[in-house]
């Protein structure tokens, strides 16, 4: 400050400067918030906030301009910063899409106020309003899109929970509008993908996901015959059960004509078992019925066994012998990226696939086709008889089976190569009998494929069940399914790949919400296996002892003869054995919890006390050193003073 100013002036100037600085700060930040929009450094592992090549390609290939209408209620942004942040990101991303599309996208932004024409328009175009708890007014936050031929698509409400899937959702919408002709997929099988209004089962969530990409038609055999027309690009076999010979023949001929097939064939369909529960005695026949066709394609799936995999097993809560346990259920698998083929486009980008009671696919000897595994179970896999899981399966007993190493099993595979017919004698008799023109049928018969067949086989049909791949969430009273596994992506990728359109494959599989603590899981898993086996042995001992006691008592009652002293002794010994075994069982159960608790306690201890202790030790060391140095210098100073004296 210059010398010429008085103290009062100086104070006044400084205060003015401080005020000015504050105003500057506010102005600067308001300016940057509104002008700088796309300058950011994306540090996430999968570059979730950076537009992928797939999106850029889709945007660059728009032929006819699309119109996107973005509806955002200001009231939502204003009252809720959580939604505000997300809304800002969605709008910025849309502007970026508009820019990259270079004229291919016209973006319009609306604020649909209550009772305005914009609100009516938003509702008419399929948006969902959400009621704000605070104000009670209805707010909108969604997108609709139109192409030149009046096809439309919409994102009814942008959920912040789906933030990681935002790019995928937007690009899918743009892609579908830019390419309105979807590949035609015919579905054949017993899976209730469309639900059943009579039984009250809702359509599966996977169905609407498939319909976003494919034009689905559902085939049914009429009598013996089944028509698969040439427009069908891919046939989706969804657990084919109860099909007549004629239908199997139609599938066979479709493949020989060069038709592509995605087959979900399961030795044990949990979904169908659940639906047929009431009728009782359900038996999955899909794998057995398809056996001749699979054989013709060079494969087999044993209809009697499914794959149990200890390392991929999912946790379940179950009641075992009256006790609630949380344990690994080996038929339910969660297969991570290391179990998925990294080289095949269908599985390369996926993170995890969940399968329930899947079968094992094996190549037949002398097969003319090539089998490339897409999903393989871990080396700790064992076959499990279907009969063991049919009625009230015991997860603990199944886990206790894993005594030694098993071997990896193929759960899904791509099959390519020349195939021969499964009907070497021509069309089946039953079909010929009912056919109008039997001669023409015989004429059209193909005995080997014209080119190479192209099939993908997954030995599980439960992978599309809602609860297997998604977690339901309720937001503003709306049901929202958040994927926890890439099951639907796998099926969509496979259909995309088989139909030859792969535009969005690179986008699928990014950003799953789940990153489990794998080490804790491993430790739990190993501890569980050990204790469950012990538990199983003890439980068997208890059961045997109980049976023996019951037998002796019954004998006593039936014969009316009192037992000898020895028999009495045996009974007493059995009883004490039983008590001992029960005690051991409790110990084992306690030990299981203790093992897991120990790991957690150790981790907590290290993290809470470790570094603070190190800091204290260092502090003590530093302070001690300083004190010693000070004392030494004081001593030498005193000595020097003495010497000079």
């Amino acid at each position, binding site marked *: 400050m210059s010398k010429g100013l008085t103290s009062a002036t100086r104070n006044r100037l400084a205060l003015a400067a401080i005020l000015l600085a504050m105003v500057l*700060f506010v102005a600067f*930040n308001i300016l940057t918030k509104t002008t700088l929009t796309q300058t950011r450094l994306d540090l996430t592992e999968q570059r979730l906030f950076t537009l992928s090549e797939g999106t850029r390609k889709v945007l660059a290939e728009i032929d006819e301009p699309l119109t996107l209408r973005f509806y955002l209620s200001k009231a939502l942004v204003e009252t809720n910063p959580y939604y505000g942040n997300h809304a800002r990101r969605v709008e910025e991303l849309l502007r970026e899409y508009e820019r990259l599309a270079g004229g291919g996208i016209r973006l319009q932004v609306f604020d649909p106020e209550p009772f305005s024409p914009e609100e009516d328009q938003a509702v008419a175009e399929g948006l969902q309003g959400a009621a704000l708890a605070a104000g009670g007014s209805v707010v909108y936050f969604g997108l609709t899109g139109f192409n030149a031929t009046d096809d439309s698509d919409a994102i009814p409400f942008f959920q912040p929970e789906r933030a990681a899937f935002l790019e995928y959702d937007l690009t899918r919408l743009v892609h579908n509008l830019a390419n309105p002709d979807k590949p035609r997929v015919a579905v054949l099988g017993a899976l209730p993908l469309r639900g059943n209004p009579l039984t009250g089962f809702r359509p599966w969530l996977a169905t609407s996901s498939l319909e976003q990409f494919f034009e689905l038609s559902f085939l049914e055999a009429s009598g013996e015959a089944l028509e698969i027309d040439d427009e069908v690009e891919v046939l989706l076999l969804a657990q084919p059960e109860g099909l007549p010979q004629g239908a199997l023949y139609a599938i066979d001929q479709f493949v020989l004509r060069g038709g592509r097939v995605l087959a979900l064939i399961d030795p044990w369909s949990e979904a169908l078992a659940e639906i047929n529960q009431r009728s009782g005695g359900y038996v999955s026949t899909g794998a057995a019925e398809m056996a001749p066709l699979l054989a013709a394609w060079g494969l087999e799936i044993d209809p009697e066994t499914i794959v149990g995999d200890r390392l991929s097993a999912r946790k379940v809560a179950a009641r075992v012998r009256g006790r609630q346990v949380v344990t690994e259920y080996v038929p339910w698998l969660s297969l991570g990226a290391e179990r998925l083929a990294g080289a095949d486009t269908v599985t390369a980008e996926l993170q995890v696939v969940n399968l329930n009671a899947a079968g094992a696919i094996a190549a037949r000897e002398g097969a003319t086709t090539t089998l490339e595994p897409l999903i393989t179970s871990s080396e700790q896999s064992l076959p499990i008889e279907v009969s063991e899981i049919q009625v009230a399966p015991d997860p603990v007993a199944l886990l206790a089976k894993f005594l030694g190493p098993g071997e990896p099993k193929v759960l899904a595979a791509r099959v390519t190569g020349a195939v021969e017919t499964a009907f070497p004698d021509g069309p089946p008799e039953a079909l010929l009998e009912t056919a109008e023109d039997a001669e023409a049928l015989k004429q059209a018969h193909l005995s080997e494929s014209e080119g190479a067949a192209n099939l993908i086989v997954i030995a599980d049909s439960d992978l599309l069940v809602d609860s297997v791949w998604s977690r339901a969430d309720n937001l503003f009273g709306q049901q929202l399914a958040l994927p926890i596994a890439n099951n639907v992506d796998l099926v969509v990728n496979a259909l995309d790949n088989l139909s030859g359109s792969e535009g969005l494959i690179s986008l699928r599989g990014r950003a799953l919400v789940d990153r489990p*603590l794998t080490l804790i899981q491993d430790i739990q898993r190993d501890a569980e296996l050990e204790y469950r086996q012990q538990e199983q042995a003890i439980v068997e001992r208890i059961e045997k002892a109980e049976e023996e006691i019951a037998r002796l008592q019954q004998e006593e009652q039936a014969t009316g003869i009192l037992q000898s002293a020895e028999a009495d002794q045996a009974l007493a010994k059995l009883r004490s054995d039983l008590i001992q075994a029960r005690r051991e069982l409790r110990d084992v159960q306690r030990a299981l919890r203790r093992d897991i608790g120990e790991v957690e306690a150790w981790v907590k201890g290290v993290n809470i006390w470790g570094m603070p202790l190190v800091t204290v030790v260092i502090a003590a060391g530093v302070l001690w050193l300083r004190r010693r140095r000070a004392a030494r210098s004081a001593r030498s100073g005193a000595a020097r003073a003495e010497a000079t004296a």
Partner: protein
Amino acid sequence: MAGTLAILRRELAGYFTSPLAYVFITIFLMLSGALTFYLGGFFQRGQADLQAFFLFHPWLYLFLIPAVAMRLWAEERKTGTIEFLMTLPVSTAQAVAGKFLAAWAFAGIALSLTFPIWITVNVLGSPDNGVILATYLGSWLMAGSYLAIGACLSAVTRNQVIAFVLAAAVCFVFNLAGIELVQNFLRAWTPGFFADAVGSFSFLSNYQAISQGVIDLRHLLFFGSLIGIALLINALVVDLRKGV
């Protein structure tokens, strides 16, 4: 620059000769660890990320950082060492920058000593380390903002307790600026753009945005400009109160 560096070195070395710094670091590490596992429910979440750890930083800093900042100027003024400082061949601006940078570096050291939790989560699972890195950076920037505000207010008074309470209160306001309660209140009484502006000055919302793993220039500029302005005011106040 040389003056700033000299002050920085002198101040930073000063921290580690007093037990206070070690006490501060120990409390910070223990609290952040305990909060992660008990309130944050690290194991209950079962996820390989550090959300449970970073979640509490804005609130931990709320009383720990003003405790570091309170003595920066108030102590110098109380003990009269400020007169000595001003006789050194450094300008006020250099002294302010040096003191702030030393305190910020100290906060950075305390923060980096939480590395065992980062190792832990990498051993236990496979977290997104980019997100963790970004959040560490965001946390450190936020600590810098708390510090700059604290330093500025420490220059206003020679009473450290008052400096602490003022800094904690102002930082609390900056933290809360974005939450729904405050926003609703503001919107009822002020024009919309004002509430928008206040909302965007929230430490919480800027920090949360960075902790998603994406560092947006706007959030960097927010923290940077806040630190810059607070230090500028700090220098003006020090100048103003020279000899008071």
